[in-house]
């Protein structure tokens, strides 16, 4: 910068006055930059709008004399219409389905990622990877159909009458399959980012491929895998259509996967799909649930980004 100024001054001194090298104000450039800036910060407004609108309606809900935080977080029956505000009736189902989903998607996704990143030949990889991408691209409502009309009947043939037609087990299992590609592709990215030198060092010490993968590469990629798991949980908590179709319609405080129960997302979908009058307690209560969902997923996403930045092993 300084050099430039000196240079210009010296130019001036040599009386090259007709070259005006100052930065010109170009109106159209400024307008365009202004528009682009506006597009850039629009996303901030979206976040503000989400927090404001959900917060406003949720406040209306919590401002009701009947609704207390103690009731909201302390009881287990949810039916705002008749004065029952125990969010646990919905949270229990969200926890159950998400746990099942993670139990499926974490081991399977991680194992797939290790195979794709460490074992598969480039040719095999180019065949297997698109299959996972197809799995990731299937709309969730199709997974819902699959859970209700394929997985549930199969489970029923094993478990018999214990299993209700709508149940958290099949919804959770299918949700696990849905999240698998996400975990697998994020973990694979993390694994492939581990430098080759580390693997070669392990081989030189006489380690087998498995020992190298599990004891050298995996720990080095742990931050990325951790982030993948957290993102996976956030997806499971926010997933709506699979649970809306297959997990059941009606709040039920239960952690038994064989029973029908309604998750937070499923409840929002069912209630808002019916005739819903504005400013009713049902309407406001949905925003309270949505706000909770938003905050939970926001925190999970932030943690995941923090994990990546904080624990990333820096090579090179």
């Amino acid at each position, binding site marked *: 910068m300084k050099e430039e100024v000196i240079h210009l001054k010296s130019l001036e001194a040599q009386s090259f006055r007709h070259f005006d090298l100052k930065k010109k104000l170009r109106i159209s450039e400024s307008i365009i930059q202004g528009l682009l800036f506006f597009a850039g910060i629009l996303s901030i407004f979206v976040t503000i709008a989400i927090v404001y609108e959900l917060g406003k309606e949720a406040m209306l809900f919590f401002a009701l004399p009947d609704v207390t935080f103690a009731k909201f977080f302390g009881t287990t029956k949810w039916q705002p219409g008749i004065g029952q505000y125990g969010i646990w009736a919905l949270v229990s189902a969200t926890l159950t389905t998400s746990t099942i989903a993670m139990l499926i998607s974490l081991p399977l996704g991680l194992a797939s990622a290790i195979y794709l990143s460490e074992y598969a030949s480039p040719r095999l990889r180019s065949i297997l990877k698109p*299959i996972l991408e197809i799995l990731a691209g299937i709309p969730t409502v199709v997974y819902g*159909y*699959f859970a209700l009309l394929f997985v549930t009947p199969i489970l029923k043939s094993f478990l018999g009458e214990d299993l209700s037609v709508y149940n958290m087990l099949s919804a959770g299992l299918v949700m696990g399959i849905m999240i698998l590609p996400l975990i697998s592709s994020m973990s694979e990215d993390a694994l492939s980012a581990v430098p080759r030198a580390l693997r070669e060092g392990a081989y030189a010490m006489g380690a087998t491929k498995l020992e190298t993968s599990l004891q050298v590469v995996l720990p080095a990629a742990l931050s990325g895998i951790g982030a993948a798991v957290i993102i996976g949980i956030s997806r499971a908590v926010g997933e709506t259509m699979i649970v809306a179709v297959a997990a059941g319609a009606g709040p039920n405080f239960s952690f038994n996967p064989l029973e029908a129960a309604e998750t937070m997302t499923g409840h929002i979908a069912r209630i808002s799909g019916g005739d819903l009058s504005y400013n009713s307690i049902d309407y406001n209560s949905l*925003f309270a649930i*949505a706000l909770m969902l938003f905050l939970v997923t926001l925190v999970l996403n932030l943690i995941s980004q923090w994990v990546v930045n904080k624990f990333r092993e820096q090579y090179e």
Partner: protein
Amino acid sequence: MNTPNTLPYPQGNAFYSTLRKRYLTATIWQSLFLGSLLIAIIVLMALIYNVIDGAFGYIAYEYKNSPSEFTATAPNELTKEELLVILKDNLSRGAYNKLDEEQTMETRSQSDLLNLFFERLVRLDTKQTWSMTESLSKGAEIQAEVAEKYPDAVLEFRSWLTPQFLTAPMSSRAEFAGVRTAVLGSLWLVGIAIAFALPIGTGAAIYLQEYAPKNWFTSIVQTNINNLAGVPSIVYGMLGLAVFVRVMESFTSGAMFGVTDSNGRTILSAGLTMGILVLPLIIINAQEAIKAVPDSLRQAAFGVGATRWQTIWHHVLPNALPGIMTGSILALSRALGETAPLIVVGASTFISLDPDGPFSKFTALPIQIYQWTTRAQSEFHAIAASAIIVLLILLLTLNATAILLRNRFQRRW
């Protein structure tokens, strides 16, 4: 033996047996890793099989009234005019007028009218349906069962996915229902979403990559975009309900423009909600595409005296365009399959009228699939499966286009 035996490593035979064990463990684990991938592939195939299995199969139905009560000729050979006369004569005035109001009877096609003939007059009554596997493997048993249980019923192998399924409007009877209104609704929806999100998303990406200074504010904007990409879609639905359906009702219902017959639950509201939902995806993809354009291009443009915007418009954007398009198509396919926000924003479940503008009520393909899947009768599951096939083919086409674009225009710098 001079080798000191104090080292904790196995020697001689012990060494080889340890080695064998290590190799065995390695093989077992490798097959487990491969097994997990195979499980994913098997599930995908099961899903596809399940959908196809549902869309074809035997159906046993009865006619409440025989077609010969209405006409002497075979129903399929009736002309449009004859059908009109039959319908007019046999339907009650009220029912006929209602149909006429939905769409003028004279403008309907012959196959539409034939459908009405079967739906309203002959009154086809489905007794039972079977999946494709059952139909193929137990055909004889099914025939025997039908002959015993429903002596008057006709048993035929039916493909639920027919050209007529694509062109017929909604109907309350699964046998006559089609996805035309739903497909049109979906197209309107993603059209509005992309028209809203593509310019803004690309603009945001340009700002962040080319203009934004590296400071705390920019990093907040960036973090915020990454977070928005992870917000559950149903939360966007709630946002759409609060902002587009309620606060901006006079705009989204068209009241501002003189449309009087609707509330805020219109295609426009849903399209804008979808647009907000895919915005972060478009921004992130466009950013990647712009990042991939090498700096030497920009410096060359600056070097010959181009302004910043000239550089972006003439050099950066054309080179980033394939990447941006690929990202937009992927965002489009996300919007096409998204269901939850539409339910919240208020997609109608039963609409037999084609959407005729941004202010009409709407339904969409995923909404229909959801509706039909949750019905108890198996014939609705069959049309849900057919609708899923339509949706998956649409998505496959979109994604194939994206891959083609990527391969065709991808450049290595």
